[in-house]
């Protein structure tokens, strides 16, 4: 596999990745010998139906697999092998250099703390000697970067006081405060309304171009990846179906399964483009 587009050096290099669960019925593999690369500053979409193993792949990279799951193979991040990295070292990478955005922003935010606290939390734990005031400033800046209006006031609000799209912006702000080199977004728009989806995707694209961070976008929705990513991995039942440049897969899919996925998606690129012009990114209603 050497279809590395544009850049010469890879940010992430995954080889032979297998994730399995021990069950009463024996070992069940949910990700099977997966290989892919992510170029520096590149955007990769991992596409598949639910149960295809795409989320497990992202958790395997983060080292956050659920209890009872095991991973094998190699995950190389910026030249560092993650699979053999001690937990302590992995922790210093997690949140700092690799950040993750989850599907459901409401349940992914702790209802007991203000969003400001939660945004600043990572910053405070990764940078030593940060005062409360500095951390708060970082949080406000991060919120401004994701276009949350009135950030200085909103920073003290609790997650339930935000709308769905705003919560996802908070989640993104949380990853931004650390200037990560890689952002993994796991179904970041699935729980959101269609109009809000487009705004969040725009925001992700904007952040990517601003910071130069690599992006892995995990989704079941091909229309979503077509907006943001330049490279695609199609997964089914833990197997890699096909991968390649997004353009190429969209125009000339090699596998029947990919074709089927594509057929299932109405060609709504135009529609989304239209919506985007109709709704400014910050026009989203604040609750």
């Amino acid at each position, binding site marked *: 596999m050497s279809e590395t587009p544009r850049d010469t050096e890879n940010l992430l290099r995954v080889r032979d990745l297998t994730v399995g669960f021990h069950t009463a019925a024996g070992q069940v593999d949910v990700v099977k010998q997966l290989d892919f690369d992510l170029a520096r500053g590149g955007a990769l979409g991992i596409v598949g139906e639910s149960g295809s193993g795409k989320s497990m792949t992202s958790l395997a990279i*983060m080292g*956050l697999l659920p209890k009872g799951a095991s991973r094998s193979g190699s995950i190389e991040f910026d030249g560092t092998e993650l699979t053999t990295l001690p937990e302590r070292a992995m*922790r*210093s*990478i*997690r*949140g*700092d250099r690799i*950040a*993750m955005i*989850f599907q*459901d922003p409401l*349940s*992914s*935010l*702790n*209802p*007991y*703390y*203000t969003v400001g606290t*939660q945004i600043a*939390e*990572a910053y405070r*734990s*990764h940078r030593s000697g940060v005062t409360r005031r500095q951390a708060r400033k970082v949080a406000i800046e991060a919120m401004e970067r994701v276009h949350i209006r009135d950030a200085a006031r909103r920073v003290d*609000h*609790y997650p*339930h*006081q935000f709308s769905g799209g705003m919560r996802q912006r908070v*989640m993104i702000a*949380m990853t931004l405060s650390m200037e990560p080199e890689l952002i993994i977004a796991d179904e970041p728009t699935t729980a959101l309304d269609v109009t809000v989806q487009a705004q969040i995707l725009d925001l992700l694209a904007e952040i990517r171009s601003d910071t130069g961070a690599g992006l892995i976008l995990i989704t079941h929705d091909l229309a979503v990846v077509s907006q943001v990513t330049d490279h695609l991995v199609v997964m089914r039942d833990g197997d890699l179906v096909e991968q390649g440049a997004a353009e190429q897969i969209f125009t000339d899919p090699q596998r029947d399964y990919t074709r089927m996925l594509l057929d299932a998606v109405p060609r709504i690129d135009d529609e989304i483009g239209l919506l985007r012009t109709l709704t400014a990114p910050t026009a989203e209603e604040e*609750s």
Partner: protein
Amino acid sequence: MIRFLLNRVMGMVVVLFLVCLFTFVIFFVLSPDPAVQICGKNCTPEVIDQLRANLGLDQPFWSQFWTFVSGLFVGRTYGSGPNAIDCAAPCLGYSFQTSQPVFDMIAQRLPVSATVAIGAAILWLLAGVSAGLVSAVREGRFADRFITGLTLTGMSIPNYVLGLSLQFLLVVTLGWLPFPQAVPFSEDPVQWFSNYLMPWIVLAVGASAVYTRLTRANVIETLQENYVRTARAKGLSPGLVWRRHALRPALTPIVTIFGMDFAGLLGGALITETVFGLNGIGKMAADSITKNDQPVIMGVTLLAAFFVVIGNMVVDLLYTAIDPRVRVGSAA
């Protein structure tokens, strides 16, 4: 916030009123005539009539109920003329047995019941929550199964059986604790402490079993929450993930239950106080039952209801302070 408070207070008043009414109906409609009881064996119909008049039992139901309720707030007068007895507010009537005002009897014994309740509550909270945490951390391992077994046992052992067994074992057989003697704390702190130790333990065993299960379930559930995964994904240390993102959400609901349980216990631990001969409200109530001393039983019922309702409200208020989601009045 003020509206919320008013709402709560209104609800509280309604519940208390209904409790009063219920209790009153039961004693008014169902129970044998107290005048006959007070009068005793060598009784004449005239004396009974006189007693009825003095107690106001010759009045219709609603009038009696009104006298009783208003007696709580402004006091009431029993009888008339030179023999009249004034019962100052809050008047709960007089005990048939001792002729003391019920309110004074309760006030006298409240410190004992409160001591029992506070000590037991501290014990069961500490034991229950920490055992629950251990159980949750070691989920599925030996420690967890061991604690689960203990809690099932603790929940199942009736407190009087446990009380008698402990007393027999620790006092009679092993002699580790002295026989209970009523002493004030200032006189003999050791004796005082050992008087209360067993009641505390006995009450705490059952309750801490419940709290252990609750804590365990809550912690395990919280650890599966998405926001805990988020916290891990931020690279927080396990200690921080635990303290901030698992413990607080897991332990918050326990506040509710704790408030209710503690309030309930303030109204007297009937069985435990009886077994250990502690002269608290519970023992007084238990004694009144056997002697059918209605004013006392009624007084204790109302008191217990009062504590429970107040406890309910305190918990509600506390909850608005600790759970941002139910915080009222904070504008979004």
